[in-house]
């Protein structure tokens, strides 16, 4: 018996086996690594042109570092973003992921711009309704189908410039500025503040004259709305709406407490030329960066109810022309998942309260006075009506409220004209 041969053979076999084994392990490892290697890049459009935009940029960079997925982000002001989406998506030029407002979902969905998300995928990716604030979760559906996933709840809040209030003598014994609790109180305080080039009160970031979101907030506080409850007839000529319009008219004209219609209110507030400012929550991180001495208080009840305008952001997947690119779609989902998991960062840095409830308990959030105030407004949130004509109605509302603000048209006549225009909107 030639044991040496056997031994040699076994050695050769085992060496071969070893090499083969090692090779196959190597190939497997390389293949797995290779499959993971070319990460998708997907396109993402949003309208975050304020201070929160920079925070989104940071988070995207972090996402890319952690996952290797690159995002081509493009940003346009909201009105232009909607117009471009409307035109680009049917032409096959749309993005893979778009962040829009809840009020946009009905009209984009009905126009076939968005792809429906089936429930299996939603639950499969770990998104459950119970985790979310009901208004935001519901807002992502249209006619029974889901088209979007909520991210956060931009809302209004009232910023108070401490220095301006001090100069006007409107501080309490503790040095904290006094806060108006009613319309009359607001007007009285604002009148004390207003002089030369300083104004007492404004609603809106830029161009307060045509700030429809602010106008909506006031309408809702008075129980009025753009459409009547049947969502067919315009409700802007109803008495409650006209009352709001008359207040809008009185702000610069009769009370003289509001700045001109095209003022950059944010710059004015930072420069100490504006005392009480109702504006979006997305502004406050910018105010902190500019080292303005301010406090943020809940939107006061100027009419019947202390309603706070809220406009949740929703992630949507625009409908591709033809079949969706699997890799890009998965990459987009990965980003939505990541943002949802890390939404506390978004809240802390951008000032937008998350739609997901899990982040609300984060002590960093509850410990921040402004974020706490924003969260406290939750019971008073109201969102736009779920009709596909919402945005078209808003577009025609804009010049009308500006005409009221600048005294070109009396409030009642203007609102009646607006009602006619809204009723005449094509389907």
């Amino acid at each position, binding site marked *: 018996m030639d044991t040496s041969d056997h031994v040699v053979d076994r050695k050769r076999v085992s060496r071969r086996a070893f090499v083969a084994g090692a090779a196959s392990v190597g190939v497997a490892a390389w293949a797995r690594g290779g499959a993971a290697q070319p990460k998708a890049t997907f396109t993402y459009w949003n309208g975050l042109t304020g201070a929160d935009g920079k925070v989104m940029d940071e988070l995207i960079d972090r996402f890319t570092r952690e996952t290797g997925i690159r995002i081509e982000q493009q940003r346009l002001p909201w009105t232009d973003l909607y117009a471009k989406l409307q035109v680009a998506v049917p032409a096959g030029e749309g993005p893979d992921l778009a962040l829009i407002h809840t009020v946009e979902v009905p009209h984009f969905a009905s126009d076939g711009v968005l792809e429906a998300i089936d429930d299996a995928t939603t639950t499969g990716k770990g998104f459950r309704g119970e985790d979310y604030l009901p208004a935001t979760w519901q807002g992502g559906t249209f006619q029974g189908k889901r088209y979007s996933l909520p991210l956060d709840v931009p809302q209004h809040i009232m910023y108070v410039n401490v220095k301006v209030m001090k100069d006007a003598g409107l501080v309490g014994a503790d040095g904290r500025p006094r806060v108006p609790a009613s319309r009359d109180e607001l007007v009285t305080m604002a009148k004390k503040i207003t002089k030369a080039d300083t104004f007492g009160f404004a609603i809106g970031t830029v161009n307060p*004259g045509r700030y429809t979101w602010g106008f909506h907030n006031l309408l809702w506080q008075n129980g009025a709305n753009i459409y009547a409850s049947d969502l067919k007839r315009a409700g802007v000529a109803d008495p409650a709406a006209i009352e709001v319009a008359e207040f809008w008219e009185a702000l610069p004209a009769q009370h003289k407490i509001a700045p001109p219609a*095209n*003022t950059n209110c944010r710059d004015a507030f930072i420069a100490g030329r504006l005392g009480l400012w109702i504006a979006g929550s997305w502004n406050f991180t910018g105010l902190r960066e500019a080292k303005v001495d301010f406090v943020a208080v809940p939107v006061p009840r100027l009419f019947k109810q202390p309603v706070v305008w809220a406009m949740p952001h929703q992630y949507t997947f625009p409908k591709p022309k033809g079949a969706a690119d699997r890799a890009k779609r998965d990459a987009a989902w990965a980003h939505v998942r990541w943002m949802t998991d890390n939404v506390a960062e978004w809240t802390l840095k951008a000032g937008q309260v998350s739609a997901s409830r899990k982040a609300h308990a984060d002590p960093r959030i509850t410990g921040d006075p402004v974020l706490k105030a924003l969260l406290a407004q939750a019971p008073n949130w109201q969102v736009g009506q779920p009709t596909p004509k919402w945005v078209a109605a808003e577009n025609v509302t804009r010049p009308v409220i500006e005409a009221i603000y600048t005294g070109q048209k009396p409030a009642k006549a203007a609102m009646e004209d607006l009602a006619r225009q809204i009723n005449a909107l094509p389907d």
Partner: protein
Amino acid sequence: MSRPTRIAYGFLAPGLLLFAVYRLYPLLEGLRLSFTNARLGRASEQWIGVANYTRLLADDRFHVSLWNTAFYTVASTLPILAVPLALALALNRGRLRTLLRSVFFFPFTLSVVTVGLAWLWLLDPVVGPFNYYLRSLGVPARSWLADPQTAMWTIILTTVWWVTGYYLVIYLAGLQDIPRDLYEAAALDGASGWRSFWAITLPLLRPVLLFVVVTHVIGSFQLFGQVFVLTGGGPGDATRTVVQHLYETAFQNFFQFGAASAMAWVLFAVILAFSVLQFRLLRGHTEY
């Protein structure tokens, strides 16, 4: 086709192709579209006759736009005619003509957006320098662009600033073409500066004036960029122009191509009418 003809059209071909595809065809297609209910995304369109045009008769905002645009054109004509002319006359009599001409011409090299942004910032009601200086002079500051009374005039001001340099150069060239001896003869006859201006300069500048007016009218009726940046059509609809209404109808709100095409052709007709009118008024009947 003879050889010379073939050669000629050979040279013409590329340009004529470009012209036919991107000037002639759109002109005629626009007219056709104006009689349809074409809409973005709608696969087929139907002939609806003059419905788009009749709807314009009832479109209040279109009327406002047309009125604003016509107002802008007419109100800006005199400043556009007079300011560069005055500058040209002054430059002719002073020194440093080339340098000054360059300075005044420079704004013309900017895009309408840059012009708009510069003035938007300058005129900011709260933190802009213009209002600041006015206030320190004791003049009450206004929100020039948000006040319906001043908004359009402010836009006219920015336009005058923008294009004066261009017309200045044209006037300078025109003035240089006027023979010096005419002025010398007039001076010998005892004519004052003013008289020479009315009797010699203006009449001989008539073709230049005509060119300026016609160019200006065609451009003014298409006012869009300055308004987009400075006021967005506001306050209310006070500075809304026809092209803006067209743009929003076709590309922002409703994507209605048929209706927008009808607007475009109405605009074309108005421009033609105005141009013919200007031509008749300014052409005069005597030639020197």
